[in-house]
């Protein structure tokens, strides 16, 4: 797999640049390819969205095919203050989801803790010239001076990419929004917070339907929260949501207006021999993703990734250990809060492989067919442009081999929570704190 850095630097053989300085607001909080894979959107802690576009293949620069360059940058959300509760509302972008493209413009949904916004990203490469009522520099002309009329003409101009907010869906969530998911009907989408899930119509901003509500009458009895939700890729009446207790509920919106009662309930029975005080915490599901086929879904808990067949509720069909060597460190990870890190996971286009992140800027890929897995590192020191990525290995005990890293020297501040896989090709985007890495598989 060849690598190149997409955070603005061509190579890492240079003097430290601006990208090396660490700005907390630059921490990437979400990564998402659009449906064609041509565009890649990232959201960060400072409320900004940066969209990368893939270069088209051209004969003049054969090597540049497939490089992603910055296409558009805009401020999606601003920090707010809830005066009623005396609390800040962070501008951090929790999720970005693209809408399927229907015309020349691109649309995406971006959300922070409380507000979802629909953004239109459009290109402008023509400009009208020859207005009657104003000059070329925009000054108004005196109407009495106009003696003739002319038709404005469209002239080419430098490409400009504009992002404009088209809809703002606000005030529907009391708790922090953790997921948004566009429905397969392309008209509705759902948004989920810790205790409720709402269904929206993309055109209507002042109303949403509440379809799941797990808030107990008495908050003292609260023991479980919603951690993620997603619409089925093909069946517009089906969606799933995961919980902090390691369960997934599949709901059918045709069954009832309020889908508090699930249609299917997915839970793996607990292994009594490995029970500890941390069992529940590490079973909490941080991400759930349907496969592209719609037949399977994948869940990520703290130590593993599980693939479920939608037709079998009592256990997953596949389980992959991401970093089992952390099981003996759970107490320390609880103490420094790392145990609450929410890792995401993703499928490749053909559903044959899955990917998820880990610590020390490691990320893991699992081939479902061959059952092989690989650990790679996203770091500047280890990835030169066009260079192959070297597989990494964590030494779990005993003698440490030459290139291995021992568990105790892992850097738990360097965590890869967000990854994305191109919908059609073997191109992956990996967010390592405030850097974005894009890796491609070149077979030639």
């Amino acid at each position, binding site marked *: 797999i060849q690598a190149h850095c997409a955070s603005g630097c061509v190579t890492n053989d240079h003097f430290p640049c601006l990208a090396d300085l660490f700005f907390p607001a630059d921490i990437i909080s979400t990564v998402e390819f659009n449906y064609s894979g041509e565009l890649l959107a990232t959201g960060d802690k400072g409320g900004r969205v940066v969209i990368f576009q893939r270069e088209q293949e051209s004969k003049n620069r054969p090597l540049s095919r497939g490089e992603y360059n910055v296409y558009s940058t805009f401020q999606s959300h601003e920090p707010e203050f809830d005066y009623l509760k005396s609390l800040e509302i962070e501008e951090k972008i929790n999720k970005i989801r693209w809408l399927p493209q229907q015309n020349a413009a691109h649309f995406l949904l971006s959300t922070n803790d409380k507000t979802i916004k629909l953004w239109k990203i459009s290109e402008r490469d023509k400009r009208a010239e020859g207005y009657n009522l104003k000059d070329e520099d925009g000054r108004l002309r005196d109407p009495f001076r106009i003696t003739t009329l002319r038709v404005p003409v469209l002239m080419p101009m430098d490409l400009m990419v504009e992002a404009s907010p088209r809809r703002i869906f606000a005030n529907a969530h009391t708790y922090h929004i953790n997921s948004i998911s566009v429905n397969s009907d392309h008209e509705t989408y759902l948004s989920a917070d810790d205790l409720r899930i709402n269904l929206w119509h993309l055109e209507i901003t002042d109303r949403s339907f509440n379809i799941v509500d797990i808030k107990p009458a008495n908050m003292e009895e609260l023991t479980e929260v919603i951690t993620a939700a997603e619409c089925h890729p093909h069946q517009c009446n089906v969606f799933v949501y995961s919980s902090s207790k390691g369960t997934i509920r599949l709901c059918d919106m045709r069954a009832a207006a309020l889908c508090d009662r699930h249609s299917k309930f997915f839970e793996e029975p607990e292994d009594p021999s490995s029970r500890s005080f941390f069992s529940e915490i590490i079973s909490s599901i941080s991400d759930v993703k349907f496969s592209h086929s719609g037949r399977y879904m994948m869940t990520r808990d703290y130590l593993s990734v599980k693939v479920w067949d939608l037709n079998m509720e009592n256990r997953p069909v596949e389980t992959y250990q991401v970093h089992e060597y952390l099981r003996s460190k759970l*107490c*320390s990870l609880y103490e420094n809060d790392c145990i609450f890190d929410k890792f995401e996971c993703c499928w490749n286009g053909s559903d044959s492989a899955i990917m998820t992140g880990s610590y020390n800027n490691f990320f893991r890929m699992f081939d479902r067919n061959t059952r092989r897995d690989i650990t790679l590192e996203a770091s500047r020191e280890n990835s030169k442009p066009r260079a192959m990525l070297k597989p990494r290995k964590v030494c779990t005990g005993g003698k440490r081999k030459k290139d291995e890293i021992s568990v105790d020297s892992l850097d738990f501040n360097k965590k890869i929570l967000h990854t994305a896989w191109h919908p059609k090709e073997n191109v992956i985007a990996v967010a390592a704190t405030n850097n974005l890495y894009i890796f491609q598989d070149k077979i030639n």
Partner: protein
Amino acid sequence: MKPWPAVCPSNCSVRPLAPSPAQLAAWLQSQHTELSTFTHCNLAPSGRGAAPLIQHPASKHAYVAHHQRTEVTRVLGCHSCCRIDMFSKGTKRKFSDDGDEISDESLAGAQVSSSYSLQRQSLLDMSLIKLQLCHMLVEPNLCRSVLIANTVRQIQEEMTHDGTWQVVTETFCGGSQSPSERLVATEVLCRSREQDAEPKLFSVLSYEGCREEEVVTDETLCSVSVSDTASDVCLSESARHCWERDEFVEVDRDDEACESSRLGPGDDDDDDDNDDDEVDEEEESSRVDPKTMGQVFGTFEIKNSAPGPDSALEELFSDVDASYYDLDTMLTGIQSAPKMGPYDLLDSLAPSHGPPSIGSPSNCRSDLNELDHIMEIIVGS
């Protein structure tokens, strides 16, 4: 060997300094202490430096944290104010008189179980701190709070089963706080700023406390089986406030509401109930547990029927190796007090015990007076 230069809050500058975990580890290591494994791990707190624990001692918002810090600095041997003689120095237990009857097996079992209890206790303490220290400006992460609260519940259930829960509740019920101070404590629960450095400091201390036991690794705690009880423990009103922020404003300022929320069944019931309580009894647990949980969450709630403050405080520190924190000991390098043995620990965890002999009751009282003094300053009564 100099004592750790922590500034004690009771007579001091505005910002007490918290040693960084690395500094503390180095200091402890210089005391020839075995550190638990996690201090060797490269597990730095997420991104933040060792911020001071409290912003201002007069701010009642930080009272709970302040109190915790008080314990820590005392324990660390800040001798300019609070002495630590109140720690039980070689409380002579009846057990040791009957030492001949104890077999080796039960001794080994006692050691393991007491180290597990210590671990469990430190996990409980850590969890409670995590729950109490919410972000002041941004709403706390509900998922994280729920998971921590569930962990606390699990521990509490198990401890109730063991019969050790009653000891915990009693330790928090010493002193002579007035109802208005309980109000302060509740408010603190939902307002304090989270400080990443603090939990690490506290837990280092907790692990340090098991010096006499096996050095406990993460594995011990991680692989222990938890009793599978099915009771539905309710959290206290104060914990609820952390989540129901829209109701918080009203209830917070309403003294009566808070008072009545804690006036549950008679205080006397709790001690007895916890001993015999079958956790499966939904009724009982829902009646008993909110109060006990509330007592844990609201650190300074009092029970009128609590035994004298001396024994409560003695229990609070009885499971810590007292000699370790004695300043004289550290300066001279001589262990003046006998080390805490496994029997002492067992005894301290037992639900019932005779009146312990305390080396210096006067120091207990002076410490309590200082606590009251601090409380008065903060509450401004």
